[in-house]
């Protein structure tokens, strides 16, 4: 014959069925929920900082927007300098290698406007511009030539100019650098 369970024994002797005390857990959950709802922001879905990239601090107060996005990496933290496509806070395809980005045109080459063009980035942006223009015609979504750039703090001015010149040549003349708000 099977022995009666402990619970039955307790009940038989007038013992009470134990309940897990949920009150304290509910208090914590309620506080957490209120805090998270108060600080809720949808910008995380629009733009996410790419790993191993040191974005500069700025006092700007403009919020993020959805646009074509690229990463300009000096390689200081990642060890892989170059230009990448950015999607969902991750580097996707590599568009240009580090030497093309870092090279400073000198001598006769400094006078050549094409020396400031990054070929991989230009090809990608022209493709994106074509797609945006097609969307504009089919769906009426205006193409405003907007591009967001996540550039590492150690990227030099020459590289920034190259990226800007390439963006401009492909029809993206509204360049916006992603920065970390300092206030």
């Amino acid at each position, binding site marked *: 014959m099977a022995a009666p369970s402990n619970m039955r024994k307790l009940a038989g002797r007038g013992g009470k069925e134990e309940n897990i005390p*949920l009150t304290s857990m*509910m208090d914590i*959950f*309620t506080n*957490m*929920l209120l805090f*998270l*709802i108060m*600080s*809720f*922001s*949808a*910008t*995380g*879905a629009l*733009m996410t*900082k790419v790993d191993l990239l*040191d*974005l*500069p*601090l*700025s*006092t*700007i*107060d*403009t*919020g*993020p*927007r959805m646009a074509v996005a690229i990463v300009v990496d000096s390689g200081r933290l990642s060890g892989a300098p170059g230009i990448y496509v950015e999607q969902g806070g991750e580097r996707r395809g590599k568009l240009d290698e580090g030497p093309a980005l870092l090279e*400073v045109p000198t001598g006769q080459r400094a006078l050549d406007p094409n020396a400031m063009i990054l070929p991989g980035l230009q090809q990608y942006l022209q493709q994106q511009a074509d797609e945006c223009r097609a969307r504009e015609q089919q769906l009426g979504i205006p193409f*405003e*030539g907007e591009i*967001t750039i996540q*550039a*590492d*703090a*150690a*990227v*030099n*001015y*020459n590289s*920034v*100019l190259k990226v*800007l*010149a390439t*963006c*401009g*040549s*492909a*029809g*993206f*003349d*509204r*360049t*916006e*650098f*992603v*920065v*970390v*708000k300092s206030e």
Partner: protein
Amino acid sequence: MAFKPSDKRKFVAEEAELNLLPILNMIVVLIPLLLTSSEFVKLGLLETQLPPAAAGGGGGMAQEAEQPLPKLSLIVAADTKGLAVSIFGATEATGAANGQYRYLPNAADGGMDLAALQQELLRIRREVVLPTANGKEQALDAAGKPRFNNDGSPAMEDKYGFEDPDAVIISAPNELPFDQLVHLLDACRSWKDPETKKVEVLFPSPMMGKIQ
């Protein structure tokens, strides 16, 4: 005669327990959702433009007036020793005496003297740009399209006697790190009065180029 005892005396209310399970389920779903979408690092966008000659088209400053307005042509050129600030295309030879050119040597720590730069830009804004204010006009965005307020009314802004009252052309050495460039752009955009904490707009539309 016996009376029947009151029903209230016999009635013992059962202790009712709240069913917390649906609330717990909802909270357990909501908390991870909100945690994943939380923004712990606040990101912003720093808008820049190419100088008009190099722009791919579509952008640039709109020019509505029949007679072209004069250009302020504010240039902040950084080099390894300091910052040169000039307006109306002045050089050291032509503008040093009349306040159209000023060279600001680096600060004692070797970095750019951004405080001095802000004072110089503030002077240019107050003495050169603001006195030319002439009524209001509809504001344009960076793409040259009219801007509107949230209620649909046209966004108005002060009209000045220059074609480029908000623009500043930045030039810097090739090796200048991007974070220092951002600090330079921040210094050109606005100035915060340390006493009143009031923010005064300086030149919020930077264009980056290289002056050979």
